[in-house]
């Protein structure tokens, strides 16, 4: 059901690869002010949803609306420019750039400078570089990344890289933030940090960087985290939505228990 509160609507998405139905008839509404978690067993289509939203996969049927505008046929870079940012399950950072440059590269769509003005590093280009640097420093401050400012991302530890990736997505000033397993492979402390960051993104005052907090879509296997921080949970199995509701409802849902325990 499309309502004014929704920022992103998926209607009847069919996505198949040859004979494999990755998503069949998927409906999903994402509200402006929520943390929506998508859970499900391996291969249930969680990442396929994210890939479809960011334009990386092309669903054969169905519509994706972002702020009531159809985005199915747009290029991934155009979709990103509209305000949909994401992180990846397997890190996809620019390893040859430093942390600060990774975040600045995330601000690519926000930078108005033309390539000609970049040739001469004063005046317009310098002012814009400094301005964007200030924004990036704010994000690095928020994510506690300052110690790694000038280090190449390729040599950073895994947990920090995950944070850099979150920072790069935040640098785009997104309206929707798609997080693909942000806690995968992390230890307890790093997980707690990451959960805190995700909550803070919703609640923090972002006056200087982000005017409005983004809606967050969280794909995660870490059940205790999901149940604790999300407002709404959607459960998938075999490319279909089998349950939707608050964390407490999902915990009790027989279909979910069946999907997970195979009983």
């Amino acid at each position, binding site marked *: 059901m499309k309502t004014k509160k929704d920022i992103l609507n998926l209607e009847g998405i069919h996505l198949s690869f040859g004979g494999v139905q990755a998503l069949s008839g998927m409906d999903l509404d994402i509200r402006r002010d929520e943390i929506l978690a998508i859970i499900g067993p391996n291969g249930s289509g969680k990442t396929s949803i994210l890939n479809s939203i*960011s*334009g*990386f996969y092309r669903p054969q049927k169905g519509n994706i609306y972002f702020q009531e505008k159809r985005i199915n046929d747009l*290029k*991934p*870079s155009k979709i*990103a*420019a509209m305000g949909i*940012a*994401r992180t*990846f399950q397997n890190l*996809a*950072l*620019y*390893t*040859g*750039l*430093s942390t600060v*440059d990774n975040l*600045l*590269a*995330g601000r*690519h*769509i926000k*930078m108005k*400078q033309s*390539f000609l003005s*970049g*040739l*001469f*590093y004063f005046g317009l*280009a*310098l002012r814009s*570089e*400094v301005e964007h*640097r*200030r924004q990036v*420093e704010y994000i690095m401050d928020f994510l506690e990344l300052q110690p790694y400012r*000038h*280090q190449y991302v390729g040599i950073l530890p895994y947990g920090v890289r995950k944070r850099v990736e979150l920072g*790069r*997505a935040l640098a*785009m000033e997104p309206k929707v933030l798609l997080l693909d397993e942000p806690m995968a492979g992390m230890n307890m402390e790093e997980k707690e940090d990451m959960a805190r960051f995700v909550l803070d993104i919703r609640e923090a005052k972002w006056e200087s960087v982000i005017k409005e907090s983004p809606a967050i879509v969280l794909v995660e296997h870490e059940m205790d985290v999901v149940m604790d921080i999300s407002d709404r949970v959607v459960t998938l199995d075999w490319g279909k939505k089998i349950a939707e509701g608050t964390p407490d409802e999902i915990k009790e849902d027989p279909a979910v228990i069946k999907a997970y325990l195979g009983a």
Partner: protein
Amino acid sequence: MKGRPCGVFDIRYSQDMAILRTKTHWALFILFLVSLFVVPTFLNGHILSLGVIIGTTMISMFGVQIMIGYTYQITLGHAGFVGFGAYVSALLMHHLGWNFFFALPMAGLGAALYGLIIGTSSLRCKGLYMVIPTISSHFIFFYLANEVFRKWTYGSDGIECGMPVLFGFAFDSDLRYFYLVAVISVLLGIVAKNLVRTKTGRAFVAIRDNDIAAEVMGIDIFRYKLLSFAIGNFYAGIGGALWGHYVGYINTEFFPILDSVYYAAFCVVGGLGSIMGAVFAAFFWRLLGEGINYVAPLLDAILPMSAGNIISSMGLIIFAVLTILFLIFEPRGIAHRWELFKQSYRLHPFNY
């Protein structure tokens, strides 16, 4: 980690981003510029001509660096693009009587346009596979110069390149031409450095390191790949035109396919992903070639049974062996060593 001179603290972001950070840096930079103009007056023609060739190679090498080092579009047709630029300016001056200083940018733009056409293949290929279209581009260049536009280029007879004249001042001596090349290569070097540390350069590196993430992060990959091609070949064209007008006569044999391989190989030796790497690459290539030109005849004289084979093969062997050794022992090139040296110099005497 960016090392910085001891006791220097940044108060503003612009200071942190500056290349010339301290008074010492500025002093060294000014000293470099002054010596660039004073020292040549004491040098003989042979060394000056070597300097000119290093300068023109350096300009072309900036292009290779932007294409391979920053965007990872491996080009094995760079000598073709260099030749394309040389031909464009030679033709414009020879047939239309243009002034060199109008023909030179046109050489760059012409090569850039040619690069754009070749670069459209980057929509489907990336990385190593770009070798195929770029090698083809080299042969297309031969075909264009020797067959299609034979009427104007005189085919394999070659074409004369006019002399640069600016307001009645002719760049006719080695010294004058050296100054011309020095100014242009320093300017283009600064421009290249600025390019790679602003929005465009970050987009290039983003595409190099992870093109899928780059696209999802809002970078129009195809556009930036084409831009990288255009800029890289602009540099090639400028370098080629400057070289052609120095030599005074060009035909397609001056731009062999082997040179394209050298451009790519020495770019690796100099250090990928660093503008300084292009500078080192140009020096390394041309100085090594000069050394071989000097040593090989001596060796031939000492070893009578070689019958001139050393002269023809020594360069090839040494270039190949050095490239392999660099790939094994310092794949990040001379530029990386230079960074390490600067680091330890700044920390000296506390090398921890």
